[in-house]
């Protein structure tokens, strides 16, 4: 019997009522008295020397309040980077200055050069068009390998080259890895591209800055996944505002997928300008601006090699990756191709020796940073593709080859610095074979053939690291922030609870799933619990939501705070019932004394805490409010196995996904419906990457796919019905909920399944195709078939 409340139940998402009826409160819904509007004049050149910005005509245009250029920000800090990577030789990465408005040079199409603040958005835009720019065009640096070649134009003149860092991991293993390759019975090599993506959340970014002249307080309303992080980065590094004078509010946010983690120049601008012009200043991104100013994702070019012994055991893995940073280092950019990628290269397998080399490169393109999965999709894609290729080269079943090499004993310390606490990869593979009906594939292939279509099956595994992560560890790895999470649980006199969480919901459904946990712990109805998030003024310092960390880390903080509440209420109940605290039991919202029929209700105890007439005041304080900060002992390691079946039209190269099955192990599940939804969304994005999406630059650094006319987002009819299962559960061993995180799995695990399936389909027709780079558009697949 499925439960109808608490952990394991699937109540409908309470937040959807307001989202679906147009009563949400998004940042663009916020309009302040006397607000002015900003329009950014952005570079349409990828690389140029900025000789002059003449605002004299523009400044006289109707409605103009003030025009800002780089000069206005000369004394102001730049946009900081939150992670410092140390390279193979012990040197720290090259870190260029990142000005709020361009200074001296423009380095990518879309970089803001000037900002017009005016009475109306149209007036701001009109004036921006009247600004005269004197820019001397420079050759654009676009291709990563060319960027590293001797004599390449430099994106940043003050850096020694376009190389941000040359990272080796684990550097000490390099010799042993090379030796294992020299001794291998078989080596499979694959070169591939992990295509650059634009996140494209439904809600474009918005920022509203406000300054209170009376108190000297600044407020920023922004579309962010982590308002406290923005407060810290912008306050401490850019504008020099201490936390107690700066409030950051991220109200309802319409999707982020990583792109709203980062601190962006527009946020700093609006906060700065509000004080400078003494009026609220609002910016709403257009979709066109979003394409060239939101951080992009992925963009790796990789060569991967897998060494096997004569019995087909994996003996070593070696990779060589170029990772595009774009023109500047976005907040977490350096961590994505390194610690979020290299540490996952073991995958689900017992490969004893691994060496990962990553060269991060500056180019004249939009900065690249974390996008759903961040580093793990790149790791999974190359690993699962090279294993598939190896199986085909060796003529063995790809599933059998994987099973043979699975890690089966836990905890398992990988050669790439992480320790998997639990998992059962054979169980998820068994489940996959069942739900995907792999036994029926041959018959389905025959049916497709009868229709003149090529059918292919692609299977792969994935592992990811979620719930980032122990602060002391990430600190050693270069993070400039902690990665704990926080919660304050406030119980009101009449028994209702408010949880103020440092996590941030922008589509994940926290307002529904977090109360389920508390309802289960206390035995009360979920409707008695309200979740507050997104405002630094009324939530404890938290690190926000990304990396599938909310329930594992934020939920754990909430559990810890609730445990403190329960401990205190038991003391009060013991006092009320004149019993020993150790004998008090809490069940279904009733405190009882073990072995007696004495009981007192949850609401009576909470009332006593606030009306402490009969209360042990000498022992405990009145009131019921507790805060906990939770810093996890390890990452969590969700894992699973995915299967994709495609039909390829041999005449046109068009791929259609006929079936897709996902068997995931997320540990314990709080709300199965929300988990299904998270997996579905992730699969949609992973399939989007595999089949459709690509941010394509030409040699001049112009983004060719800069609108939905050319950037193909997945639509409903591009996607199949999914078979999704998360009944294989090996609970996380180190967080109190035993949960692992489910938000990114779909996007991590699905791209290799799609490509494996297409390669299988083409090979089934005798085509000599071992790889096709994503997106597998009809034209690319057709070209691959032509040989």
């Amino acid at each position: 019997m499925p439960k109808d409340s608490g952990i394991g139940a699937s109540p409908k998402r309470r937040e959807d009522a307001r989202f679906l009826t147009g009563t949400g409160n998004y940042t663009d819904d916020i309009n302040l008295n006397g607000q002015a509007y900003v329009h950014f004049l952005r570079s349409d050149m990828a690389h140029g020397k900025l000789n002059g910005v003449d605002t004299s005509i523009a400044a006289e245009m109707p409605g103009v309040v003030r025009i800002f250029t780089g000069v206005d920000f000369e004394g102001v800090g730049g946009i900081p980077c939150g992670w410092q990577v140390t390279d193979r030789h012990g040197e720290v990465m090259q870190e260029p200055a990142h000005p709020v408005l361009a200074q001296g040079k423009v380095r990518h199409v879309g970089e803001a050069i000037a900002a017009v603040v005016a009475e109306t958005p149209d007036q701001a835009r009109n004036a921006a068009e009247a600004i005269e720019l004197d820019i001397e065009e420079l050759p654009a640096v676009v291709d990563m390998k060319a960027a590293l070649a001797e004599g390449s134009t430099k994106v940043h003149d003050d850096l020694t080259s376009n190389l941000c860092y040359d990272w080796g991991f684990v550097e000490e293993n390099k010799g042993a890895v090379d030796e294992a390759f020299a001794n291998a019975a078989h080596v499979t090599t694959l070169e591939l591209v992990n295509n650059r993506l634009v996140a494209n959340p439904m809600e474009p970014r918005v920022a509203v800055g406000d300054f209170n002249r009376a108190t000297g307080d600044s407020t920023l309303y922004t579309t962010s996944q982590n308002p406290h992080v923005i407060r810290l980065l912008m306050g401490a590094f850019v504008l020099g505002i201490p936390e107690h004078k700066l409030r950051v509010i991220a109200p309802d946010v319409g999707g982020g997928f990583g792109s709203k983690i980062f601190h962006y120049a527009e946020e700093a601008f609006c906060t700065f300008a509000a004080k400078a012009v003494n009026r609220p200043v609002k910016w709403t991104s257009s979709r066109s601006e979003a394409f060239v100013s939101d951080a992009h994702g992925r963009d790796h070019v990789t060569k991967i090699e897998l060494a096997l012994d004569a019995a087909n055991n994996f003996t070593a893995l070696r990779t060589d990756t170029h990772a595009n940073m774009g023109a500047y280092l976005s907040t977490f950019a350096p961590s994505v191709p390194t610690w979020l990628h290299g540490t996952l290269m073991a995958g689900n397998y017992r490969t004893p020796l691994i060496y990962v080399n990553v060269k991060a490169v500056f180019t004249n393109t939009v900065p690249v940073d974390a996008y759903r999965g961040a580093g793990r999709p790149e790791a999974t894609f190359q690993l699962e593709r090279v294993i598939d290729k190896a199986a085909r080269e060796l003529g063995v079943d790809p599933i059998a080859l994987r099973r043979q090499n699975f890690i089966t004993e836990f905890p398992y310390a990988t050669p790439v610095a992480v320790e998997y606490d639990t998992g059962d990869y054979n169980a998820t593979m068994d489940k996959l074979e069942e739900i995907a009906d792999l036994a029926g594939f041959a018959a389905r292939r025959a049916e497709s053939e009868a229709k003149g279509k090529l059918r292919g099956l692609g299977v792969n595994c994935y592992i990811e690291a979620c719930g980032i992560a122990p602060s002391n560890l990430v600190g050693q790895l270069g993070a400039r922030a902690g990665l704990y999470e926080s919660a304050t649980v406030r119980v009101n006199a009449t028994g209702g609870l408010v949880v103020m969480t440092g996590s941030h919901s922008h589509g994940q459904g926290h307002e529904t799933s977090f109360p389920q946990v508390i309802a289960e712990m206390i035995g009360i109805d979920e409707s008695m619990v309200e979740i507050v998030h997104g405002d630094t003024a009324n939530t404890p310092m938290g690190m926000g939501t990304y990396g599938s960390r909310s329930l594992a880390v934020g939920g754990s903080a909430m559990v810890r705070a609730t445990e403190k509440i329960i401990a205190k209420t038991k003391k009060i109940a013991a006092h009320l019932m004149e019993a020993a605290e150790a004998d008090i039991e809490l069940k279904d919202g009733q405190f009882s004394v073990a072995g007696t029929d004495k009981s007192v209700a949850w609401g009576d105890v909470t009332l006593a805490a606030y009306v402490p007439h009969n209360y042990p005041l000498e022992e405990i304080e009145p009131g019921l409010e507790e805060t906990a900060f939770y810093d996890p002992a390890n990452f969590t390691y969700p894992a699973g196995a995915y299967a994709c079946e495609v039909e390829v039209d041999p005449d046109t190269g068009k791929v259609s996904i006929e079936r897709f099955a996902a068997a995931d192990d997320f540990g314990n599940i709080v709300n199965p419906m929300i988990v299904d939804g998270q997996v579905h969304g992730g699969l949609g994005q992973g399939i989007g990457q595999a089949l459709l999406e690509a941010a394509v630059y030409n040699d001049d650094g112009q983004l060719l796919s800069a609108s939905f006319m050319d950037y193909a987002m997945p639509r409903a009819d591009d996607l199949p019905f999914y078979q999704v299962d998360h009944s294989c559960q090996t609970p996380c061993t180190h967080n109190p909920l035993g949960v692992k995180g489910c938000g990114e799995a779909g996007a991590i695990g699905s791209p290799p399944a799609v490509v494996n399936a297409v390669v299988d389909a083409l090979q089934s027709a005798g085509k000599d195709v071992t790889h096709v780079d994503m997106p597998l558009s009809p034209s690319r697949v057709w070209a691959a078939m032509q040989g």
Partner: protein
Amino acid sequence: MYNFEFENPSSIAEAVAALAEEEAQALGGGQTLIPTLKQRLAMPSKLVSLAGIAEMKGVSIADGMLTIGGGATHAEVAAEACPPLAALAGQIGDPAVRNRGTIGGSLANNDPAADYPAAMLALKSTIVTNNREIAGDDYFQGLFETALEEGEIITSVRCEIPEGANYQKFVQPASRFALVGVFVAKYADGVRVGVTGASEEGAFRWDEAEVALNSNFSAAALEGLALDAEGMMADIHGSKAYRAHLVGVLTKRAVSAV
């Protein structure tokens, strides 16, 4: 969007008069023009809406002739035109686009990836304007270029109803306009093949295919026939060779489906 004046005439004559003003521009369903204005890529002083002109509405079939008002929406064409053209109209954009966008606007715009041009070339069409009739074969003059004069309005379109016809559209994955579209129409006096999306010179008739199909109306007749990739368009969605190849595939499919 820059500011503009707006007029909403109820007759063709009034519209023509309003359009005589310099920088005035006709507004059909706005599905191309409004996004262009929003991006500030056009700056008309005045928009003259054609949506309120009753004489430009409606779809009718009489004496083997299909007549479509220049202001008829794609949705109306999808509901009321002869089946092959109705099917084409039903594949344009999404319901919102089809409920606003008009055949006159699409033909006036002549986007190289638009669907209607392939059909107009195949269906022995006549483009009727406020002051003349233009044979479909003379109308399309390259990418976004037509025989229309400044201020001229497409008031209706006439097509001869064929014995059989079929449109095959291969969508560009992002825009879902035609990456390539082929309209094959079979008449007693011959076959016509209209192609959109492929050529650098815009929609065209594929003469070689017509000749082959005139002697043998079957997909087999097209075997071995190939368009020269030179002269085809290329972009991130398809090379010249791919487009040339698709024309062949789609033509065969259309013939088989007629």
